[in-house]
């Protein structure tokens, strides 16, 4: 088979995500102003000002430096939560599809119940529960991040689980599974060796989509005042800067653009993988 050239979108998406990963690892070493300390001579300057490529906000904080710093936490939170969601949701989904019977009903009921509450409301309630261990709401930044990851993962599990179950269902009835059963393989072994490999591509595709969705949900939670609050994620930047949208529009539009580009790239990957799967299945 001839090697097909990859579409240009693939390179753009990979380029942006590569840049994001690079920035989240070595971004702190770049010769840029500290994102926590304001430049009091240049308050709220616009794009392409000398010394501040993306301008500064109302307290003189360099926006390029802030958005680069935000990359790390935004990506860490959404990817960790997405991976947790895939692992647990995928396991539950495959387990449900393989076992059928009462276990399937119980798991499916759990999925349906949690899906009937709007995602953002559920996330909001969970953040409120986990975040403030005492009534004063004094929590460290690390605790808040852990809280967010846990919340987003919990919200994601039923969504991914249902997709994993649907995908696994189309494989559990096949002859090779029956053959494995007849040979006396243990259920967990069958799930691991025969069903999981077939479900992984779908899970991977949905996983990219989910990571994108989670970046958006994190931003939404920040706007509602339930995210990381000190401006160290894109969502938190958006939440603080949006108050001054009318005066310093660029400070809101920069993190919004960063979120949009990342989600776009992740969606593209999801789509790309999906197309590969579809192509493979149609050749079967």
């Amino acid at each position, binding site marked *: 088979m001839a090697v097909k050239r990859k579409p240009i979108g693939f390179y753009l998406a990979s380029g942006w995500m590569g840049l994001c990963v690079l920035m989240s690892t070595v971004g702190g070493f770049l010769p840029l102003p500290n994102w926590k300390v304001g430049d009091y001579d240049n308050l709220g300057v616009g794009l392409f000002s000398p010394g501040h490529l993306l301008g500064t906000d109302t307290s003189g904080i360099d926006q390029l430096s802030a958005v680069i710093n935000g990359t790390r936490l935004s990506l860490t939170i959404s990817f960790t939560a997405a991976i947790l969601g895939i692992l647990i949701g995928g396991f539950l989904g495959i387990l449900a599809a393989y076992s059928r019977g009462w276990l399937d009903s119980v798991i499916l009921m759990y999925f349906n119940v949690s899906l009937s509450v*709007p995602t953002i409301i559920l996330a909001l*309630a969970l953040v409120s529960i986990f975040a403030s261990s005492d009534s004063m709401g004094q929590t460290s930044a690390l605790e808040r991040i852990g809280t967010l990851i846990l919340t987003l993962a919990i919200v994601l599990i039923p969504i991914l689980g249902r997709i994993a179950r649907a995908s696994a269902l189309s494989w559990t009835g096949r002859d090779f599974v029956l053959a494995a059963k007849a040979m006396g393989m243990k259920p967990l072994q069958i799930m691991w060796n025969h069903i999981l490999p077939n479900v992984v591509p779908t899970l991977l595709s949905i996983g990219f989509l989910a990571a994108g969705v989670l970046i*958006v949900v994190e931003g939404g939670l920040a706007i509602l005042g339930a995210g990381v609050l000190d401006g160290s994620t894109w969502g938190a930047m958006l939440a603080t800067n949006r108050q001054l949208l009318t005066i310093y529009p660029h400070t809101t*539009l920069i993190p919004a653009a960063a979120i949009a580009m990342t*989600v776009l790239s992740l969606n593209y990957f999801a*789509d790309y993988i999906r197309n590969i799967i579809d192509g493979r299945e149609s050749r079967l």
Partner: protein
Amino acid sequence: MKKFQNITTRLAQVVIILVLVTFGITVLVRLLPGDPASTYFPYATPEELKVLRREYGTDKNLFAYYIDWVAKVFRGDFGYYYSVNGGKALSVTAMWKQAMPVSLWLMFYTVVFSLLCAIPIAMITAFREGSRVDRITSNLLFGFSAIPNFAIGLGLVFVFAVQFGLLNPVGYHPWRDGAWLHVKSMILPVLSLSVGQIAAYTRLLRADLIATLKEDFVAMASSKGLSNRWILWRHVFRPSSLTLLTTAALNMGALIGGAVIIEVVFALNGLGMFLQASIAQRQYLAVQSTVALVAAAFILFNVCADILYGVLDPRVRAHRGR
């Protein structure tokens, strides 16, 4: 007989889900740190708190508390809003009367507007699959679908309200304030919610249309000399609209209470914002009843989608001709 049994199982499922959702949210609400008594009376003595908790019913254990709530809901009492002066000032239903129209109008306009945009776009792109128009539109929509709705909302506020000073960016106006004011207050929120939905709907419908266009009965209709327009609407659109309608119905359910970020950005005091405020203020009863309402609406739309499915496509009508 079989059909009747189908409806009963379906109904039983709905009831079980509702019970589990409301119980689950009761557990979550009771897990919230800080209860109404200590939130509203931070300086009360332990004895006073005890009295307050008895009054609020929060001294009971989880199950007794839940059953209390269910019993009241069956009597049409959805609870009240705790307030600092201790009175049972506002009932939750009274608050709903204010918030519900906002959410319902927002949902209605969004779904209608999205479908009105998505259906023609999908028809054109599917009919000319692979053409330049199709490729450009599909790529554009793919791009738009990636922009979070709050980013679109903030961008729209910036462009329309700030740059041109055209539409008021925040606040809701009911119909009785005048039609123009009402429409004006809804345009930006509806637009920001719609962009993503238009992209999603167009994608779904386009894929289904393309699949249907390859069916034999389309070739048949075409060879009978029917016009393209007639074939597209009568023969292709109807069987292809199933996924679209189900998704739209699900989105309608999700938009009630789920549009909280857009409601906050545009200061529309809908159900989502009400829920957010209730969670923040530890309004146990308001949270429980409102989540129950939102979940019930979501499930209702789900069931409607299932029924629609049967009406639109005779092939999936349960147990017919088998």
